[in-house]
């Protein structure tokens, strides 16, 4: 079951104007949706909010209904040990398999773990590699 290994990221197009982030997060707040990981990629006049939330489908619907341009993106989660070389071994494994990491961001998870969110160009192959490394996060983000 590949689906359980894939995390659905909520991606939202926002114009780079005051109040846009507030408008997005207000909608989530109203529905009691918790943001677990969050990043904005900005490019001049616009930005793209990328986030992992606890109630993904609900978040997608409420933002779409509010008129935002929103999509769900398949990303992978990787659990990183709190020791030197943790990220290196993963990046190396993916690099050797010729898998490109398109973007990456991280958040703390549980008591003392960090979870890294990865967007890769070949998700099937990346799952295979990361499973071999025994680092792929399998579970629910909530």
């Amino acid at each position, binding site marked *: 079951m590949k689906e359980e290994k894939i995390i659905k990221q909520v991606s939202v197009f926002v114009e780079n104007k005051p109040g846009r982030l507030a408008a997005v997060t207000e909608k989530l707040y109203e529905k009691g949706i918790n943001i677990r990981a969050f990043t904005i990629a900005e490019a001049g006049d616009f930005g793209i909010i990328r986030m992992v939330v606890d109630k993904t489908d609900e978040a997608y619907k409420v933002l779409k209904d509010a008129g935002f341009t929103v*999509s769900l*993106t398949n990303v992978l989660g990787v659990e990183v040990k709190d020791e030197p070389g943790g990220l290196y071994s993963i990046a190396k494994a993916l690099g050797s398999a010729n898998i490109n990491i398109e973007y990456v961001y991280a958040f703390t998870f549980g008591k003392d773990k960090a979870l890294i969110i990865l967007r890769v160009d070949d998700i099937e192959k990346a799952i295979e590699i990361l499973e071999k490394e025994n680092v792929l996060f399998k579970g629910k983000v909530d």
Partner: protein
Amino acid sequence: MYWDPNVEKMPLKDLKALQERKLRALVHLAYEYSPFYRRKFKEVGVNPWDIRGLEDLSKLPFTKKQDLRDNYPFGMFAVPTSQIVRFHASSGTTGKPTVVGYTSNDINIWVESMCRSLTACGVSRNDIMQIAYGYGLFTGGLGFHYAAERLGATVIPISAGNTQRQIELMKDLHTTVLACTPSYMLYLAEYASNNGVDLRETKLRMGIFGAEPWSEETRKRIEDKTGIQAFDVYGTSELSGPLFTECVEKNGLHIWADHFLIEIVDEDGNLVGEGERGELIVTTLTKEAMPLIRWKTGDITIMEEEKCNCGRTHPRIMRILGRADDMLIVRGVNVFPSQIEHVLMQIPEVGEHYMIILDRAESGLDEMTIQVELAEKAFSDKVSDILKLEKRIAERLKSVLNVWAKVEVVNPGTLQRFEGKAKRVIDRRKI
């Protein structure tokens, strides 16, 4: 189908002879009864007897919008007010107001012209026509109204605006033909789809769109989105109102030559070569209340004199490419908003609505920004994809306009919608 087949299919030779006869009568009448034209003729030293044929037309001076303003309200009329049965007026947002008057014969010719046009694009007495052009001092609503009635079609005189009601009535009364501005059609289609109404499931089969320039690509979008046939209509209040539409060939708008004589001229007022673009000049051959000689419409188009496949011999103008005074000068380059629309509508990743913003940087250089809505399906979570799209649009614009524009994609539904004529240019440059 023809409304007046004998006239519409008249051999070109006969049509030209008819035009010459009417032109000779016109200059004499204008000289005799219009103090304005008598003064104008004298200024350039032309006598009505100098005008013998169509080739003499260029001896006559142009009539400009400013003439109508200067002679407001009655100075352009060639008949006493007792013979005038109606006035239409423009609001004068860009200057003093202008007024147009009609004798009962003028109204009749207006309605007859429009009946020919509506028949040519396929409207018949079996149609139910929803007229969403403004009624009142604006000529659009009433122009369509009387022609549709004379045709025997059923008219819904709903006028402009109130989109919810437009859609309700369209569904309930089985509207088959909608007349409005193209930008309002786009708005209405979007409104319908946001409210769960599929226009394909209504009886609407065609639309007649005008009062502002629009592009072939916009036609394609309207047709693809709504499943209707979209036709272009042209006319100006000074000439009467909406007068000419495309025929079913969709290859230019027939100008009824027994009433209107057209020329295309360049910026210096000289006739352009065959097939070249220029400003449309119209001489009204039969208007009584306010005859216009070599009226500068300000509209840029191309004339086609070849007989049309539909069998009509009357010359055609291609869709209006822009207004002579809509022309933007950006870094010294002439830019028509219609060229920008043309490019944008060929790019499926963006929507139909756009804005053109002009600024002048401190360096004194003009900066043009084009805002366009990102199509839902084109959204990607990768910044580079959207930047690539902006770059691709900018490059396409550059190749057509010869000047760079900054392209900004924005959220769908966020740019201004227009219920009447669209105003898509914001010029913030300080001269």
